[in-house]
């Protein structure tokens, strides 16, 4: 019994994704433990982002099951949910490899958009306006009084809390598009956290960050795990991040899963070294140095 199997959050079974004749992901199965940091690694084109897109609902997998279980025992079959329901009901949030912020909206507005569903319930819109339920909440929201005003204050407080966590509070009213790259990355993580997820999927969070920034990222991710008690699933090329923070590593190569285990085990797996690190002696030596500091 692997350590993460004792308390499972997500079980991916026989996940296969075909685009026409191309098999991008071929029979991949792994588990994500609650409160674990799981890394998905592999060379370029290995199918990591495709797995991510399947989990977060942007692709419908050709085959396979993805079952996510909440602490209260409620479970969701992710392959059957729409992308927005995966966030709002199954509570899975994600970031993107090429940052996808709302550049013309301020930093705070970005975090308010992330709390859309909480605020919408408080405002009674659009169901309130259309179906007649909660019409009072809708009127209250239009006049900015009552439950909605309270919900909005709480949402702003929550956004401020996360801005403080990622050290962006003083930049709250700056358009997101004006932030430097590293801060945009952090803002995207804060925005995903504002949807109050149980599983946070990060697609190459350290891409384009310098050494100091990626140290800061490591700390942020570890603190999110420790304080929020959620699971993290990350795709990453930066071995300094992967090897320092992940508990559990899944390795893909050409769409196939070639290793799955704790980081020590994966680090020494000859198949991983051959496939992922390449076979040329210099490259192996170079990556060896990186992997064993």
């Amino acid at each position, binding site marked *: 019994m692997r350590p993460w199997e004792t308390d499972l959050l997500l079980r991916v079974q026989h996940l296969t994704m075909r685009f026409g004749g191309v098999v991008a992901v071929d029979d991949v199965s792994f588990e994500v433990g609650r409160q674990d940091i799981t890394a998905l690694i592999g060379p370029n084109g290995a199918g990591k982002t495709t797995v991510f897109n399947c989990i977060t609902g942007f692709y419908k997998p050709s085959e396979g099951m993805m079952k996510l279980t909440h602490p209260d025992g409620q479970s969701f079959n992710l392959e059957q949910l729409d992308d*927005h329901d995966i966030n709002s009901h199954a509570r899975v949030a994600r970031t*993107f490899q090429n940052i996808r912020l709302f550049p*013309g*909206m*301020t930093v*705070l507005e970005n975090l308010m*958009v992330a709390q859309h569903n909480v*605020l*919408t319930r408080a405002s009674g819109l659009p169901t309130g306006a259309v179906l007649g339920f909660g019409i009072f909440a809708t009127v209250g*929201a239009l006049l900015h009084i009552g439950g909605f005003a309270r919900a909005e204050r709480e949402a702003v407080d929550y956004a401020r809390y996360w801005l403080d966590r990622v050290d962006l509070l003083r930049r709250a009213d700056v358009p997101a598009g004006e932030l430097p790259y590293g801060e945009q990355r952090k803002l995207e993580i804060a925005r995903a956290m504002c949807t109050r997820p149980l599983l946070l999927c990060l697609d190459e969070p350290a891409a384009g960050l310098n050494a100091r920034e990626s140290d800061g990222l490591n700390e942020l991710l570890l603190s999110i795990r420790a304080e929020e008690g959620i699971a993290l699933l990350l795709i990453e090329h930066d071995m300094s991040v992967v090897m320092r923070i992940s508990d559990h590593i899944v390795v893909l190569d050409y769409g196939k899963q070639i290793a799955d285990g704790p980081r020590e085990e994966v680090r020494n797996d000859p198949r991983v070294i051959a496939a992922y690190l390449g076979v040329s002696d210099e490259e192996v030596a170079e990556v060896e140095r990186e992997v064993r500091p």
Partner: protein
Amino acid sequence: MIPLSEPGKSFGQRLKSALADAIIAGWIAFFLFSLLLGVRTVDKVTGLTLAPRPGLLAIAVGIVVFGRLLLNLFVWQAEHPITTPFAKLFTSKQFERRDLIVLGSVAFVSTLVFIIASIVHAAGFQLVAACLLAFLGIGTIRRVIVYFFPNLPYARIFTIGGIAFAILFPLVSYLLEKAFHLGLPLRYLFDLSILVLTYVMLGWGLNIVVGLAGLLDLGYVAFYAVGAYVFALLATHFGLGFWMCLPVAGIAAALWGVILGFPVLRLRGDYLAIVTLAFGEIVRIILINWTPVTNGPNGISDIPKPTFFGLPFSAQASPNFASFFGLKYDPLQGIIFLYYVILGLALVTNLVTIRLRRLPIGRAWEAMREDEIACRSLGINTTITKLTAFATGALFGGLAGSFFATRQGFISPESFTFIESAIILAIVVLGGMGSQLGVAIAAIVMVGGFEALRHTAGLQSVFGEGFDPALYRMLLFGVAMVGIMVWRPRGIVGSRSPTIVVHDVKPIPKNLVEEARA
């Protein structure tokens, strides 16, 4: 071809490249105009013959060559472009001595020209000098105000001033006219303002779809038509009044918005624009061909006017508005009432939009414009978000439509052609997508400004009695559009204000904001 000079070239080099540039431009102009202006076809006994017009061609080419040469020497290649001091009037850059000399001498010369031209009745020179003086005057006043009060909330003052003017204008001008018999063309002014306000409302309605949600809609006039016809049919068949039908027409148009929204959910940009364009045409063609219901191209007439809490404005009715309040009957009363109805409708559109922007649904619209995929990853149902945007925009289009029907008293499919959609979209784009103030200004300029061109006697005195400015409306329209797109590519109001802030409000430059694209 000799490239245009970089700074630091000697005068000789600059002159040489300017001359070369002007000659090349002259040749291009010669070839272009040789067929357009150089010859004209004359119908003679022997058949259609070409009559050369070398004089006109020479004038056109001469204008191009000398214009290009002067622009090269004094603007494009000049160390101190002659246009800088004028541009500085509209920025907050420091004036140098040179700038003041240029501005002062231009002001002096144009005043002189204006006076002389007034004495000798040279209307052309008078007009040019007056335009120059007005330009300088406005710029100077702007600089003086900004110098003394640098931190006033100008946009807010402008908005409040505009609304106050809109509320007071008909009453005050009506009372002044009654008291002093000034001979103001009130009927014309009120009709024009009602037209402008209708377009302001349509612009604000479309702004929700295009400006906020970023969905390019070329068929907005369809909702306008649905609103107008729903009201007209209900009124003529069932005898229902305007106020009863107004919400019904709005809801019917919103339903059409949802009906349009469903098939186009997956489309964006160009494809969405094409489908909405087709939708607008479908609605118009149905109105033409469904004769038993819509009376086809003949339209629907005798649509009732709105009443003031049950009191009609017509002279025949008793009691009517005038008799109930003990006033003397005046047809202008009804028109002033219509003015306040459309003003109220437009302000409601504006207030609802401003409020919706601060609600989750409005933020979701803007977020969807910025990045739809990111929206979905945050748990926002983009289907519902798009449909609400279409429905809300259509709702206001429908309200404006039923106002249009009641004002005209007659509607036919002719009023709902594609050009209407294009004008409304142009108002939104020129005003600055998403900006309420910009859309209002653009509607006033586009509709009011060009409508006013029909009635300008001043231009006729310059260009001769045969000159009809109305003929050149569309040309001026195009020139104005090109000008705004060159100088203010993001529209008249080129910034977006945040919907919620922690510290302080700062407008966001539009180059960061996404917009609906085709």
